[in-house]
């Protein structure tokens, strides 16, 4: 059996077809993910249109520099992910492993900063009153509190689901690092590339979340 046929799964005729099929499957999944986050974006758009001042006030409760640093951290992780895919494609096992672990590192830094932000918001009482009473935390106060709470609810749900995707992504990256260690690099290249697509997608979601949540009402 030649090396080329060893890479080919039995249900495909050619390697190009196999690669195309996995890529299409991943993009179809990502399109469904667009709609998953899309419902949250639609809800956000409606309430931002209805209560622009309350959303600005809620946004000012967040630590925007932390969000900006996290954006840079996530973009850096996307760069290392792209370089991991490139290394795998060019047959460099050590390069792929190094850049995958770098991606895990930056992803973990992102989640660390996010966790610090959540703790800071709980500490300052910048949580929706409902959530606060549920956990015995101080919530927002004042006449506009219900509307500001709406913003904070969007903030926690959107960043929360984003962080959940990051956790899944970190698991995938560790799995891929294991795959790169265990299997021939030309066999690992395909899966590394597909998980890379997922990682970049999560990055794209954050690219929109950052200005929508952190940067209202700064002017």
């Amino acid at each position, binding site marked *: 059996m030649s090396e080329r046929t060893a890479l080919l799964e039995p249900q495909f005729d050619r390697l190009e077809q196999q690669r195309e099929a996995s*890529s299409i499957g991943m993009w179809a999944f990502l399109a469904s993910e667009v709609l998953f986050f899309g419902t949250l974006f639609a809800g956000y758009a409606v309430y931002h249109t209805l209560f622009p001042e309350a959303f600005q006030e809620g946004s000012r409760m967040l630590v925007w520099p932390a969000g900006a640093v996290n954006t840079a951290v996530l973009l850096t992780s996307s760069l290392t992910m792209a370089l991991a895919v490139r290394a795998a494609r060019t047959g460099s096992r050590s390069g792929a492993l190094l850049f995958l672990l770098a991606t895990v590192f930056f992803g973990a830094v992102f989640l660390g900063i996010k966790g610090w932000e959540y703790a800071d918001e709980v500490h300052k009482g910048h949580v929706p009153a409902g959530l606060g009473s549920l956990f015995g935390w101080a919530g927002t106060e004042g006449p506009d509190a219900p509307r500001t709470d709406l913003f904070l609810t969007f903030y926690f749900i959107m960043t929360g689901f984003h962080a959940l995707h990051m956790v899944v992504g970190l698991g995938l990256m560790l799995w891929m690092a294991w795959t790169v260690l265990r299997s021939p690099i030309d066999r690992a290249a395909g899966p590394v590339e597909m998980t890379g697509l997922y990682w970049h997608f999560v990055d794209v979601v954050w690219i929109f979340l950052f200005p929508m949540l952190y940067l209202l009402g700064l002017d």
Partner: protein
Amino acid sequence: MGHVTPVRTYLLVYVALLVLTAATVGAAFLPLGPLSVVAALAIAGVKATLVLLWFMHMRESSRVTWILAAAGLAWLLLLILPVIVDYLTRGWVLAPKGW
């Protein structure tokens, strides 16, 4: 596996993404009024396009991939735009009493 993008290209895209992040923060401090949302979404759109084309290799992808990506965008717009139009235009047309 075909074409391999040079490392320098990835670095250039990365620098562009960081510069655009700084630009979106800068734009948020300008008194643009309702245009600030437009500016923020436009910059985010450019950043997303850079990631899609270079990091996600859409430049080298097949047409089927483009169709799936376009479908994702089309359904997203279909999800958001009519809802916004509904809320923005409520009260424009007043039905007579008793309807």
